[in-house]
């Protein structure tokens, strides 16, 4: 297993650095903007936005926008961060089964003395580590930048955000891995995962806008992920964490079952 993990890490470390640099640049932009924005009358600025627009991006309280937690959440963490790292996670899971079969390198790999289960688990370990790594580095970047720009942000809140954001990304990894065992190409896996991610996000947003849907907000995975609340309170809802981990586990187990029965 360790041979595969090391080899895959050698293949992926460059792209991991590029993703991190992208996330760092995005964080930098948001953190550098905030002190200027905070001096402005953000409440009256946002009050000119359509109410539905703010609700769509998860910010219903005007006053929260003048705080770093609300600003970061609206501009970066609620969607764009998850979308960027989600794409990385979906591509990585897509390469594990569908991509390797598509490129036909799976044949030779499976003629080596390693079981299909161990092969999937090895690549999953790396996928989980990489998504954790990107989330941790983003949080550390935000923390570091908050010191540079004299913005106060709670370390506890960032830790809570790191834990739940990582678990949300792992849940998407599980979904993508399961799709990877079913679908034929890496790009279809990545596109389907992003489609599901956006579907959940849009549904979650619609439950805030459309009154009739308000009771159905629990059916979106984004119900379990509220970056503004996590950054503000620093509290982790254990049930939410367990559900996200459960989704990842179900995806992993499902993909192993399907892959073990699959003709290559």
């Amino acid at each position, binding site marked *: 297993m360790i041979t595969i993990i090391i*080899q895959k890490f050698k*293949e992926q470390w460059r792209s991991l650095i590029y993703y991190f640099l992208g996330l760092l640049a995005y964080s930098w932009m948001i953190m550098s903007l905030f002190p200027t924005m905070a001096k402005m009358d953000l409440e009256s600025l946002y009050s000119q936005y359509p109410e539905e627009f703010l609700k769509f991006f998860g910010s219903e309280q005007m006053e929260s926008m003048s705080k770093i937690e609300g600003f970061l959440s609206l501009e970066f963490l609620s969607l764009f961060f998850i979308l960027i790292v989600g794409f990385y996670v979906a591509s990585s899971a897509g390469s594990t089964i569908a991509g390797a079969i598509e*490129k036909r390198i799976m044949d*030779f790999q*499976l*003629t*080596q003395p390693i079981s299909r289960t161990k092969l999937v688990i090895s690549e999953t370990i790396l996928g989980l580590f990489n998504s954790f790594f990107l989330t941790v580095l983003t949080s550390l970047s935000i923390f570091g930048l908050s010191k540079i720009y004299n913005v106060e942000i709670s370390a506890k809140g960032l830790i809570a955000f790191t834990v739940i954001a990582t678990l949300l990304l792992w849940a998407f990894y599980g979904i993508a891995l399961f799709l990877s065992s079913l679908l034929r190409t890496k790009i279809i896996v990545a596109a389907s995962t992003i489609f599901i991610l956006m579907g959940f996000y849009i549904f979650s947003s619609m439950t805030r806008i459309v009154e009739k849907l308000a009771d159905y907000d629990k059916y979106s995975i984004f119900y379990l992920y509220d970056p503004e609340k996590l950054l503000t309170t620093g509290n982790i809802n254990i049930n939410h964490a367990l559900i996200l981990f459960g989704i990842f586990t179900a995806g992993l187990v499902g993909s192993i079952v399907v892959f073990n029965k699959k003709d*290559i």
Partner: protein
Amino acid sequence: MANAIQTEKLTKYYLGKKVLGIKSLDLEVKEGEIFGFIGPNGAGKSTTIRLLLDLIRPTSGNGKIFGLDINENSVEIKRLIGYLPGEVFLPEHLSGRQSIEYYSKFKEKIDSDYLRSLIKKLDLDLNKKIKEYSKGNKQKLAIVLALMHKPKLLILDEPTSGLDPLNQQSFYNLILETKKWGTTTFFSTHILTEAERICDRVGIIKSGKLLKIENIDQFKEKNIREIHLETTGEIPLSHFQVNGIKKVERTTIGYKITTIGPNAMTLSKILSNKIIDVKISEPSLEEIFMKYYKE
């Protein structure tokens, strides 16, 4: 002698029961022999190999390699085998050296002297990336990967398709060398001369069914050939009444004769006529099966 490979009623259908891969394959390959698995494209050779390698799962029947079940004990089996596909797909970003390093980590023991000699014999440049390799060089690298751990069983799926004649000869020599330390070879091909050259026994497969298993001497005796004659005029039919001539056809420039067995008598009788040119070729497997195996 114990069996290296044994299958019992091994059957594979694709797409439900719509497409037959192989049907009720009963096969025994003895330890230490080079077994040729001969059949035209689509006969079921690759399906059999993929079943043995546990890349696909049988619809029914079972198979054993060194007494281990091909599905249940797949990982243990893969410690004992080397596999060489006809078309090689390896991670393209790796260099030849990196891919040897990577795949050697899955093996229990590598004889580094033997590995060096393999690389030298095949004249392989290990510093290039795999994506920069020609088809022939990819094939050479795959030969190294298949042989470097001196496997007990070699599974070769049309292995010489990317090699030029010189490298084909080196490859045959390498395979014959492995026999010295007791390696069994299961060798699928659609080239008869290749099988005649190195195999001890051959299995003939067509349309998913095993037609016959023969010793190579029996197989060679058939020596099925097509002789194309370019003539200036007609040859009396009586000149074709020679033992071994199975079929005579008129062509626009002369005759096409199908023969079985030694051709010396046939040629000495025919060449007394006004012949401009003679070409002797191996008929296609399809034709051989039609003529000899009546399938």
